């Protein structure tokens, strides 16, 4: 089948992720949306690897997964500390820092 469809799918995933970042209030969900964007990129990489017939894209996908995982660790740490001080993970509540 046409790998182009996968690209379309990945772009859809990316946009959903971006919109999730823009629209959701829950930090965890925002964060998941970012991960969704990363995985959209992953899908694109793999598909392009298929189209170009070289493995680079697939190898890259591995690395991206790892980086994403590391991001999860850091992100959860930060979000949890915030949660514990503010009793909520709404990313709109902390806005003391502003002009």
């Amino acid at each position, binding site marked *: 089948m046409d790998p182009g469809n996968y690209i379309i799918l990945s*772009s859809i995933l990316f946009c*959903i992720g971006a919109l999730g970042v823009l*629209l959701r209030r829950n930090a965890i969900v925002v964060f998941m949306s970012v991960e969704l964007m990363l995985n959209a990129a992953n899908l694109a990489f793999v598909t392009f690897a298929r189209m170009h017939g070289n493995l680079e894209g697939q*190898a890259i996908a591995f690395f991206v997964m790892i980086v994403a995982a*590391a991001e999860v*660790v850091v992100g959860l740490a930060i979000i949890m500390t915030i949660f514990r001080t503010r009793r909520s993970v709404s990313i709109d509540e902390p806005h003391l820092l502003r002009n």
Partner: protein
Amino acid sequence: MNVYIPLLTLAGLGMLFALFSVSVTSLTGPKRYNRAKVDAYECGIEPTPQAVGGGRFPVKYYLTAMMFIIFDLEIVFLYPWAVASDQLGLFGLAAIMLFLFNLTVPFVYEWRRGGLEWD
């Protein structure tokens, strides 16, 4: 200009679908905005705020995540190495050993810092 047509269609499709799905959920879905929605885990497991030790961090959850990651990555990278190990030879072995060592470091750190004790 035509060079943009695939890209723009791509972006357009993505946007449309994303907007559609998001708006549909917000239109059709029931609106019960309560604390649970902004809780750390909507799955219901409430991280106890005043845990033993007066607000000490209940690290369990994401320590587990961390351990999962450690071993997950180990496997993810061991497979390709294993496949090509005979060609990679000593260099590959050294490399993968270095990699494994680096993975062990956080594990050791976690263990020494008592991350593995489920009280």
